[in-house]
């Protein structure tokens, strides 16, 4: 039985969740129900043979690659990179160019949970009325440290998406993240 994430109706609903998530950084959006991990549902919604994907931690199996109809690329070149959020960063993603900042990569991180973590962060920026707090569980701290460096020269940068079984949480390049004690 093929999972619903490969159906157009599911992908349309997932896209609306993604639009809402990126419009309101820090907010946890629940995806429509499926048997697959949220990260694969997101990729099924956004990518095809016209895009490129890197999977340095081998999170996708062969049938996922076939259904996505996408070619593998090195993390330095890929438009989409899917990673385990608990592992440390060990690559430099594409940040785009001044004339074409949309080439900056989309990083899809898989996590145990989007809330209930030990470290708390305060978010401000477009899409956030005043400020919002997040506490993703099991996120390796190197992601936010490297992100600050990658996103230091707007409009260049990367856009993050944290995913878990419960849903998705987006961190576009415009979101300012501050760790709070």
């Amino acid at each position, binding site marked *: 039985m093929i999972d619903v994430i490969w159906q*157009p*109706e599911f*992908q*349309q*609903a997932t*896209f*609306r969740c*993604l*639009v809402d998530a*990126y*419009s*309101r950084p820090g907010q946890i959006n629940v995806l429509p129900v499926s048997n697959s991990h949220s990260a694969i549902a997101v990729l099924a*919604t*956004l*990518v*095809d043979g*016209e*895009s490129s994907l890197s999977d340095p931690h081998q999170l996708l199996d062969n049938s996922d690659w076939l259904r996505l109809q996408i070619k593998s690329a090195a993390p330095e070149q890929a*438009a989409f990179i899917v990673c385990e959020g608990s592992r440390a960063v060990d690559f430099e993603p594409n940040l785009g*160019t*001044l*004339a*074409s*900042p*949309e080439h*900056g990569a*989309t990083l899809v991180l898989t996590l145990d949970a989007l809330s209930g973590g030990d470290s708390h962060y305060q978010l401000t920026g*477009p*899409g*956030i*009325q005043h400020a919002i707090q997040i506490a993703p569980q099991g996120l390796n701290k190197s992601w936010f440290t490297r992100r600050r460096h990658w996103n230091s020269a*707007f*409009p260049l940068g990367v*856009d993050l998406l944290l995913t878990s079984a419960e849903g998705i949480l987006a961190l*576009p*390049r*415009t979101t300012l993240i501050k760790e709070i004690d």
Partner: protein
Amino acid sequence: MSNGINFAFLDEYAKREIRRSVIKAICIPGYQVPYSSREMPMGRGFGTGGLQLTLALIGADDTLKVIDQGSDDSVNAVNLRKFIEMTCPGIDTTTRLQEATLIQSRHRIPEQPLRADQILVLQVPYPDALVIVEPSEDKRKIMHGEADYSRLLVKLYEDIVKFDEITISHRYPTRINGHYIIDPSPIPRYDVPRLNHSEALILFGAGREKKIYAVPPHCLAEPLAFDDVPFRIEDFTDSHGERRACKLCGSKTSFLDEFIDEQGARVYQCSDSDYCEQQQELAHG
């Protein structure tokens, strides 16, 4: 719809490309993301950019409102609405703003405030505010990246020198999140302040020019102006210094259209027909 045509007309590959462009447009507020803009069964310039955004967003549980210059009944709105109803079986359409989840509009932002659960799609004829000062797109892309808008400010300054006034009536250049300046589509000046810290996401689609851009919710949107020449909206006061009212609903706060009636007199009426009707319903209980 007969067999062989996909839900929402576009094929799934076209939708995925628009999805990727929309996400990047939200992540880089005000930046014009290029996309391939598919051929639609209507001429470019008839709202195909907005239409492709709507078709990529819409699902069977959506309620759609389509507006043309504030009116749900003018020809562009009617034709787009019919096409979307035909190709998206199961969706609902409405003229009441409060019932809509998705709103496609040409040249107006609805009079009443938008909610966080609504998305506004604006049709855009000319997406680049810099085109009046720089003909080369390559150079404009660098200028946008560097947020170099000095030549646009000179153009506004020249207006003030010649006419004592910035003469842009619509498509007023607006800076988003302190960086990119957008052409907010031919909305009147009256609508520009409502881009600032909007509750709803606002998406812009230019089909002929193949660009998608966005103003996210709760995002700074400032019309370009000078410290000593502030931005101002249209002036609806009459010769006695009174704010003109809509002849149908009596509203003294709405954006007004000017008509010449059968006796040759000038009359004023709300541009947003849905708002005007709701005001009349309130008045008549």
